[in-house]
């Protein structure tokens, strides 16, 4: 079953995973302080039993340091909960940055 977050959620992923999964569309929202909401929502879903967080970057052009920090928070929370983090539709330059900063060591790229 796929749980919806209160922001952007891809309805197509419903029932794809046997474990409860949450899909987050990063958008541009991630790069601001208000992006902390994503982290909080993901934490709430993890606390509620979600075992997979899928972050969809298909609408994200650039990721700045605030965005990276928020994603690190999502990864940290997921690791503490024993859940998996998947980054999907990542632009090559973003993938390169994530690789350089070590984020890709903790997530699955899709």
């Amino acid at each position, binding site marked *: 079953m796929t749980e919806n977050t209160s922001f952007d959620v891809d309805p197509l992923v419903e029932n794809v995973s046997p474990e409860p999964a949450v899909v987050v569309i990063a958008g541009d929202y991630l790069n601001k302080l208000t992006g902390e909401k994503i982290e909080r929502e993901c934490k709430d879903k993890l606390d509620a039993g979600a075992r997979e967080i899928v972050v969809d970057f298909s609408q994200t052009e650039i990721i*700045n*340091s605030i965005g*990276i*920090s*928020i994603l690190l928070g999502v990864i940290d929370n997921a690791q503490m909960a024993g859940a998996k983090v998947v980054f999907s539709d990542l632009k090559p330059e973003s993938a390169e940055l994530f690789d350089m900063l*070590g984020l890709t060591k903790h997530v699955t790229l899709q």
Partner: protein
Amino acid sequence: MIEQSPKLIHAFGALAELGQEVANKNNFQETIRTSLHLLSGALGIMRGGVARYSRYAREMNMLAIRGLGDEFPLSLSVCVEDERQFLTNGLNAIDAHAARVLPFFQVYAASFERRHIELFIPLIIRDEIVGGLFLGEKATGEPYSSYEKEIICAMGRHIGVAISQRNLLAEIERHSEENRRLFEDLRRTYADTVKAFATAIDCKDKYTEGHSVRVGKYTELIARELEWSPEQIEGAATAGYLHDVGKLTVERKIINAPYRINAKESAELNKHPSVGYEILQAIHHPFTDVPLAAKYHHERLDGRGYPDGLYDREIPYIAKVVNLADSFDAMTTDRPYKARRAAIDVVDDLRRNAGKQFAPELVIAFLRGVLRELKSETKDRRFRRLLGREYMEAEGLAPAITGALNELAPTSSLTYIAARSGSE
């Protein structure tokens, strides 16, 4: 090792953003939270915190944390030895494992280990510890390079400046608040002293007990009606309270004479405005017109007043206000040789003497104030409290005031009030 240029560009981007964030003077808490994000995101740091140092409590108090969990202390004590070492170290990264000789790293060793704190950076601005950065492991799992430590220190300097600015602002606010309180205390003391003086003046005259206090209050009411500023209203009230201070030097038997005093006694009594001026001039008042009000409150617009027989524009405005308040109280209180006059008669007297004894615009303001209270257009019942309910409810008082107002200012909006009252 030469760092990869994309990593360098990314880190410098974060540094530039941080500089902008600090310069923007946004909400302080948000600035600190953003700063921690930028620092973590610049180098891929999994967890960390920004603390503000209280040198009085010798504590590092966390302002923002990320990934440190609920068990990490939010307030960390710093001893004298730690403080000395931090100052010696300057704004440079300290390896938390290598610094175990310091009490700070011994006391919190368990917490640091549990949350993988690898670096501590004391934020030192102008030779003062203003805070500290606590940084955990990098997402790469690799140790911090010297280049990364330099980036962290550069960003730490920005955060330190933000904290220092906030401390400075808080200190200015604290001093400003302290000054405001001191000023308020002084102001209250001055006001109390003025009232005490007014009571002392009134004690000398058993027949006009409370006269100075009432004149102070009437003067204040006129000033309010004229829409003066709070400071001007306070000054006007003070002038009213102290207008008769010169009477302190007049013989009690003259002041309390239960008969019309003779010419000699009158001359003695009439010295009180000038004497009052001399007394008040020696005092440094926050309101400069107070001595002038005492000196000229018996002057008349037609030049028939005393002590100098000044005409209209020669008379200080505050003295005109006090004169009206003084005369009104004299007419509306019992004197040993004269009973108080009926309210309607007083209104008529004010109307007739506007332009002769009293400034017309002041009579208008005063009567307008009474009328507004009679029509319950004001919440407070100041005139009622000073004159008594029965006096204020005298039959025909409101129409008499309306008539006087129309006569004094026939083209003013008060004509409308009269027309409306007449049609009702």
